[in-house]
């Protein structure tokens, strides 16, 4: 992230370096994902109560957590944009919101798939699920407001403020299992995780999944930031060509 937010010194070589880094990252991500798949399906123990569906756990949890990270980056980059007013910050904020939305969507999907066998219903109006859904709405609104603003400049500012205030929902999602009676499992990661909530082997595989998913997350984010850079360049060229 530091490289993206840094100064544009030696622009061309810097950009080429970044492109190479993205290629490498793609490669590493692919390898990690493959190993992760192997671990999840071959190494992880089958759950005594839930059976094979429980393996979704190793996908569902990292993806949920990383969507939080996406929105955190979005809020921080939003603050950065409001202070600095450089497109660079906005690019990061926009990209992380998009990646975050993809990740919550996946969290919802994996959750729904998981819920069907264990709760006997696709969906429950239940705090964790409801607040996660709301999180999805907030960042969909983030992406909508960008387009609906009268000028692109306003779109950037407005989405930044929505991203900042929207982040308030993330801790609510996290703590929802505690605040309300929830049938969703309690936290296994983060400040409120209970000691020894998981078997050691499960915890280890979960950590590996987390790393693999983080690699994927980072790759997607960098790729999207780069793409936004190209889009911005294009509209700038168009503006310069437009003599009034």
């Amino acid at each position, binding site marked *: 992230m530091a490289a993206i937010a840094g100064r544009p010194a030696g622009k061309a070589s810097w950009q080429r370096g970044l492109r190479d880094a993205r290629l490498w990252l793609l490669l590493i991500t692919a390898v990690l994902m493959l190993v992760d798949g192997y671990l999840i399906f071959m190494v992880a123990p089958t759950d005594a109560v839930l059976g094979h569906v429980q393996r979704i756990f190793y996908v569902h949890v990292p993806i949920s957590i990383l969507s939080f990270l996406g929105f955190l980056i979005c809020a921080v980059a939003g603050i950065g944009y409001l202070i600095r007013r450089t497109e660079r910050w906005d690019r990061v904020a926009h990209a992380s919101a998009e990646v975050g939305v993809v990740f919550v969507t996946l969290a919802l999907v994996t959750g729904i798939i998981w819920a069907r066998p264990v709760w006997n219903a696709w969906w429950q109006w239940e705090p964790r699920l*409801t607040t996660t859904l709301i999180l999805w*709405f907030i960042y969909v609104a983030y992406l909508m407001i960008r387009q609906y603003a009268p000028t692109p400049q306003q779109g950037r500012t407005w989405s930044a403020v929505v991203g900042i205030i929207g982040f308030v929902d993330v801790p609510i999602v996290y703590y929802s299992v505690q605040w309300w009676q929830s049938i969703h499992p309690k936290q296994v990661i983060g400040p409120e995780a209970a000691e020894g909530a998981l078997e050691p082997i499960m915890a280890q595989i979960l950590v590996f999944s987390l790393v693999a998913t983080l690699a994927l997350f980072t790759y997607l984010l960098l790729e999207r930031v780069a793409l936004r850079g190209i889009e911005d360049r294009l509209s700038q060229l168009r503006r310069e060509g437009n003599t009034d």
Partner: protein
Amino acid sequence: MELLRGALTVAWKDVRLELRSREVIASALVFGLIVVVVFNFGLNRAPGSLAPVAPGLLWVAYAFIGVLAMNRAFTRELEHGGLDGLLLAPISRDAVFLGKMLGSLAFMLVIEAILLPVFAVMLDLPTLSPTLGLVILLATVGFATVGTFFAGIAVQTRSREILLPVLFFPVVVPVIIAAVEASALALQGGPMTAVWTRWAPLLLVFDALYLVICPWIFGFVFEG
């Protein structure tokens, strides 16, 4: 002090304008009454089916009314560029925000106070306690804060009316949820420890959080 002076000036202006035209209160009341009647007719089909949903209905009605009120508070500002006048004045953006927020808060509280007895009669709400009043106050503060903030954005877009709920509801739903839970407890009239130990503090945290964040970012909403 500077802040408060500016905020109160703005809020007082809104209150005065409203007392002139009464449009926000009148239309909100009409809508509130429609909601009560519809709920009553529509819901009261199975006897006793209303009691468990009453707190939810109360807050759904309040939420809709809040959206109407906050929309109006800002369209009035845009009529002849009054908002520019506020932004030109030597008061901080926080003061403008706070002023608009206090104005909306006042309207909403008035409307809520008028509608509560109506709801109590028509929805068979069991007990009206000071605790319920406090819950409503706390939730409405959070509501008005977030609502004012998003109304500031939505009013500058084309489809402002419909965009406001889309922006606003997701962020405010946690407040509504806490308010529903707390009101349910308060209405049951039983022991209210859960209200005091859990919901009221939670609402307070929300209020404090939004009251810190919203004024700060509000200034950015109005940059041409």
